């Protein structure tokens, strides 16, 4: 497999890998490193890639596992990942969407969700994957995906309503 063939396969979903990594690791730098690591792993095993049915789903699973490992590693436990750059990125987004504070809130609420729910929200509401695909990526069944998704969405909505009504009611 040549480099250009590899890039043709990988390029369409590299942003998705990055966003998923960022959803889990929160810090942009960490997510960039993770994405790089994943892409290099894919490149080093490029001979095996042809054997996989769905390279994209496989890579997403890889990303998920890699990030969870990263979060559980000793390094992360001793040293809290600092993400000072996060605010900057958000303000850029805020300008785009003109909904300054509330949109920020959604990000913070999602950050507080359990990892599994965060993953599912990311994969479903942002990357718009099929339920079956998500189930395949996370190695759980279809109903579990739906249940977790429903919980996550309800939590987000409740917290948003609370922050909306804060000081009013």
């Amino acid at each position, binding site marked *: 497999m040549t480099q250009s063939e590899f890039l043709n396969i990988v390029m369409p979903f590299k942003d998705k890998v*990055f966003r998923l990594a960022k959803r889990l690791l929160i810090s942009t730098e960490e997510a960039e490193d993770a994405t790089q690591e994943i892409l290099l792993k894919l*490149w080093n095993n490029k001979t095996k890639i042809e054997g996989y049915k769905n390279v994209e789903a496989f890579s997403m699973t890889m990303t998920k596992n890699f990030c969870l490992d990263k979060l559980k590693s000793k390094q992360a436990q001793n040293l809290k990942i600092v993400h000072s750059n996060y605010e900057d990125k958000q303000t850029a987004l805020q300008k785009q969407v003109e*909904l300054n504070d509330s949109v920020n*809130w959604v990000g913070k609420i999602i950050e507080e969700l359990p990892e599994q729910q965060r993953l599912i929200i990311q994969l479903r*509401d942002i990357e718009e994957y099929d339920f079956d695909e998500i189930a395949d990526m996370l190695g759980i069944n279809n109903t579990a995906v739906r249940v977790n998704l429903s919980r996550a*969405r309800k939590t987000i*909505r409740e917290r948003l309503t609370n922050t909306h009504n804060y000081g009013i009611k």
Partner: protein
Amino acid sequence: MVLNSIEKLIEKYENGETSLKEEQVLKNYFTSDTVAPHLEMYKPMFTYFLANQQEQFTKDVSLKTKKAFNYKWISVAAVAVLMLGFYFNKPSDVGTIDDPEIAFSEVSKSLAMISNHFNKGTSTVGYLNEVNKGTSTLGYLTEIENTTNIIFKKTNN
């Protein structure tokens, strides 16, 4: 009418039952300007989702096409060098004697030397006999034991 269907969709959405198409409808509705006031809190949620879809990975990843050096070949080369070394440095003179008579006398000379030194070694082993004598005298100790036995028997009674 539109509002009604949106409300239904929202309910389905929260139960995780919407299809991707229906979710797209919701996303379009909530990012438009005409959102009903009582559904206002969903607006940031869907805007956030849409905004986050656009984030991209911009860092360059250098893919190395160069193969890692194969260390197997180093051992192959080392063996080849060793073999060549043996081939070119054949030892020429190891003291071989062609005449059988001289060879015989040389061999018997060296064998005689070996037996000479060997006998020196065995003569010193002779001192071990002294040790045996020593142990035989220890036999007298049993006599002492006999007498002590008699004493203890008396005290026990």
